[in-house]
C-alpha cells in the first residue's frame, strides 16, 4: 500500500484528533499508512471506477497511524526503548496523560477513586488529581451516565466507567437518546465528548449477567463511535484518541485481557479510532476479529500455518463505523472472509459486518462470508459449558479449512 503522508486540512478520518500536536509524536518506523480518503469518496462497492481513488493517500497530517504490521510479539521492537506494562496499566497511563494534558478531563464511576478502580485502571489517579476530577459515584448508572453527558454538554470531557459493561444497560436511555442524539437534535449546538468505557465479554465463570457483550446492543445508536481494544499498545492509543475525540466514544475492554503484557513506546502516540489493525498479513483468507477473539484467532493461525495456510488476520478495532477500507482491500486480495467474534450470533457485530461485506464487496468473494460467534445463550456458569459458548481455536481452524477448499 502507498504510504505517503498528506498535509493540509480536510475532512477525513484523522480529524477526530484535531487537538493533536504532531510535534510531540514520533512515527514508529514500522508504520504502514493506509491511504487517505477524501471526504466525498464513496466506499468501493465493487465498482472499478473507484479503484484509483482507493489508492490515494489518507489524510494524516495530525495522525500517526499505528497499524501493527507484525504480529503482536514484535510490536515495539523497532522503536528500541519502550517500557513493558500490563494492559490495565496502559489504560491508566493513557488516562493519566490525558488528564494531565487537559484539565477538562474527569473520571466518574463506581469505586474509581479511593478504591483505585475495580480493575485498577484508575489506580492512583484520585490521589494525584483529587476528588473533583476522579469521582466516586454511588451505584446509579442511569444518573451518573446522565450527569456525565450533561457535564459534557457544557464542555467537560468525562470518562464514564461502567464497572462491567453489562451494568450500562441501566443507562441505555441516556446513552442512546442523550449521548448519541443530542448533537443532531440540537442542530449541532452541543457536542458530547464523553468516553464510556468498561470491561465486558465472557470472563472466567462470572455468570450470565456479568458476561455480556454490549457492543451488539449499542451498535445501532446513531451518533456514537465504538472501539474495542485488545493489546496494551492499542488500549493506550485508543483511550487517548477517545478522550480527544469530540464525539461520544464507547471503549470496550475485555475482562480477561487486563493482564496482557507488552512493551509499548515511551513517546506519546495515539491510535486512529476508525482504523483496523493488520495483525498478520496473508494471502489465503481474511480473518476479521476484535478484542479477546484476536488471541484465539492467532492461536488458530499457528496451527493453520503449520498446515500450510496463510491467513490474513485483521483486528477490526473500530466496531462503529467499520473500517471498510482496510477490510475491503483485504477482501480484494484474499477473496475469502471469516469473522470470529464473541458477540451473540443474532444481531451481533459479526452479523452487521457480514451484511456490510456482502453489500460492498460481493464481487470479490469466492465463498460466502462465514461468521463464528458465541452461541445465543446466556453464558452458563459451568466451566465446560462456558467454554463451548465462545468460539475456540479448533473451530476457527475447521472453519478456515472449510472455506479454503
Amino acid at each position, binding site marked *: 500500500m502507498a504510504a505517503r503522508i498528506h498535509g493540509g486540512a480536510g475532512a477525513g478520518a484523522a480529524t477526530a484528533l484535531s487537538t493533536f500536536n504532531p510535534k510531540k509524536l514520533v512515527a514508529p518506523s514500522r508504520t504502514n499508512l493506509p491511504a487517505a480518503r477524501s471526504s*466525498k469518496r*464513496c466506499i468501493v462497492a465493487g465498482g472499478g471506477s473507484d479503484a484509483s481513488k482507493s489508492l490515494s493517500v489518507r489524510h494524516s497530517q495530525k495522525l500517526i497511524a499505528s497499524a501493527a504490521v507484525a504480529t503482536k510479539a514484535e510490536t515495539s521492537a523497532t522503536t528500541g526503548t519502550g517500557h513493558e506494562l500490563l494492559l490495565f496499566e496502559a489504560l491508566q497511563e493513557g488516562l493519566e496523560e490525558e488528564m494531565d494534558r487537559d484539565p477538562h478531563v474527569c473520571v466518574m464511576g463506581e469505586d474509581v477513586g479511593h478504591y483505585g478502580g475495580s480493575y485498577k485502571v484508575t489506580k492512583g489517579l484520585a490521589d494525584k488529581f483529587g476528588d473533583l476530577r476522579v469521582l466516586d459515584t454511588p451505584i*446509579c448508572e442511569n444518573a451518573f451516565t446522565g450527569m456525565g453527558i450533561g457535564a459534557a454538554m457544557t464542555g467537560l470531557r468525562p470518562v464514564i466507567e461502567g464497572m462491567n459493561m453489562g451494568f450500562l444497560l441501566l443507562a441505555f436511555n441516556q446513552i442512546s437518546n442523550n449521548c448519541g442524539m443530542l448533537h443532531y437534535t*440540537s442542530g449541532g449546538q452541543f457536542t458530547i465528548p464523553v468516553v464510556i468505557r468498561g470491561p465486558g465479554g465472557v470472563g472466567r465463570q462470572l455468570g450470565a449477567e456479568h458476561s455480556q457483550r454490549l457492543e451488539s446492543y449499542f451498535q445501532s445508536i446513531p451518533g456514537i463511535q465504538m472501539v474495542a481494544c485488545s493489546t496494551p499498545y492499542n488500549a493506550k492509543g485508543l483511550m487517548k484518541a477517545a478522550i480527544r475525540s469530540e464525539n461520544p466514544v464507547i471503549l470496550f475492554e475485555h475482562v480477561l485481557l487486563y493482564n496482557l503484557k507488552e512493551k509499548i513506546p515511551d513517546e506519546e502516540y495515539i491510535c486512529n479510532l476508525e482504523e483496523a489493525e493488520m495483525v498478520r498479513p496473508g494471502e489465503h483468507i481474511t480473518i476479521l476479529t476484535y478484542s479477546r477473539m484476536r488471541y484465539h484467532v492467532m492461536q488458530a493461525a499457528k496451527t493453520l500455518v503449520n498446515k500450510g495456510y496463510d491467513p490474513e488476520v485483521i483486528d477490526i478495532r473500530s466496531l462503529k463505523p467499520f473500517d471498510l477500507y482496510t477490510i475491503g482491500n483485504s477482501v480484494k486480495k484474499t477473496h475469502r472472509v471469516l469473522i470470529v467474534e464473541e458477540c451473540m450470533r443474532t444481531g451481533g457485530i459479526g452479523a452487521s459486518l457480514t451484511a456490510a461485506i456482502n453489500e460492498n464487496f460481493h464481487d470479490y468473494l469466492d465463498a460466502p462470508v462465514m461468521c463464528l460467534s458465541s452461541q445465543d445463550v446466556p453464558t452458563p456458569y459451568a466451566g465446560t459449558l462456558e467454554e463451548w459458548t465462545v468460539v475456540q481455536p479448533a473451530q476457527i481452524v475447521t472453519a478456515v479449512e472449510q472455506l479454503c477448499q
Partner: protein
Amino acid sequence: YLPHWNWNCLTTDSQSEKSAVWIMALSRLSSRSNIISRPLSAAFRRSISTDTTPITIETSLPFTAHLCDPPSRSVESSTQELLSFFRTMALMRRMEIAADSLYKAKLIRGFCHLYDGQEAVAIGMEAAITKKDAIITAYRDHCIFLGRGGSLYEVFAELMGRQDGCSRGKGGSMHFYKKDSSFYGGHGIVGAQVPLGCGIAFAQKYSKEEAVTFAMYGDGAANQGQLFEALNISALWDLPSILVCENNHYGMGTAEWRAAKSPSYYKRGDYVPGLKVDGMDAFAVKQACKFAKEHALKNGPIILEMDTYRYHGHSMSDPGSTYRTRDEISGVRQERDPIERIKKLVLSHDLATEKELKDMEKEIRKEVDDAIAKAKDCPMPEPSELFTNVYVKGFGTESFGADRKEVKAALP
C-alpha cells in the same frame, strides 16, 4: 374620580382568597395622585414601561418550606418589570395559541406540548437569574426557550420543521436548545433531563462558575428513579442544582393523587430542602428562584415545587377533558390565570390603561402572525442535512439512505 379605574376589579380580587392580590405600593402613593390629576385621554402618551422605581409586591400565598426558612412574601419589583412580565407572558400565551391553530392546520406534526397557563414559571425564573445560569427542561419547552432569548421566528420555524429553526428543523417541538443562553433543552424522555441537569451543575462547580442549574420536570416525572439518584449525588457532592417540579397536577392523563403516594413533591427530597410556591404568581416564582439560587450556591441542592396548571391537554393529541372537568379548567382560568393577575395589578396600580394593554396585545398578535408568516416562507432543510451533525467533524465513512443505489452521502 377616574372613570377608567375599575374598582370592581380590585374588590372581586379581595373576595376570592386564592387570587387576592394585595398591593402595597408605598413609594407610589404620591405619584398616584399625579396620575389622578393628569387627563387620561388616549392622546396623552406617558411612558408606561421605563419606570424602574422599586415597588414591593406581596405574593398572594405564603411559601411552604421543608427543611429551610421560607423567603419573605414581599417581592422587589419595578413598573418596568411588571409591564415586561405582562408583555412577555402575553407573547408566550399568544405563541402557544398560535401553535395550537398551526397544529390543527397540520403544519406542525408529531407531538406538540403547550405551556399556556404555566407562563408565570418561565417568566419568574428568568427574572431571578442570569444567562449564565442554566435551565434544562422536558418537552414543554417553547416558552422557556422564548424566555431564554429565543425568537418567535426560530420557534415557529422549528415547529414547522424548517431549516431556520433553532435546531435546524431536526429536533422538533421537544428539542429546542439555545447554547449561548445556557438553555439545555428540550428532552423527550420523561425524567432523563434531571441527571443531565445535575451534570451541568457539576460542570458549573468544576469550572468554578458562580452559577446554578434549574432542572425542571413535571409531577409525572417526579416518580422517576433517576431523579432521586441524581438528587442523591447532588446532595453528596454539594452541586448547585435546583430541581423545579412544575406541578400541573396531571401526568398526561393521570391525576397526581393516582400517581404519587406523597404528592408533596417539595418534601420528596427528604434530606434536601424544599419550597412550595404558587406557580401562577410570577412574583412568587421570582422570589423563590432568587432564594433557591442563593441557597444552591452555598448549601447544595434544593427542590422547588411550582403549583401551576395547564389549560391545554398534555399535548395536542390529548383533548384534556377526559380526566378533568371543563369547569375545573375554566375555574382556574378565572381565578388564577397569571396574565390576568398581572393585568389587574397593572390596571389597579394605574401603570397603564386598559386600552394600552389591549394595544400591546394587538401588537403581540401581529408580531406572532408576522413570525408565522415568515416561518411559513422558510424552506425545508436540504436533503443533505439528513447526514449533517450526526458526528462532529465526521470521518470519511458512508451513511446509507433507504435506497442504497441513489442516496450515498459522505458524512461531513
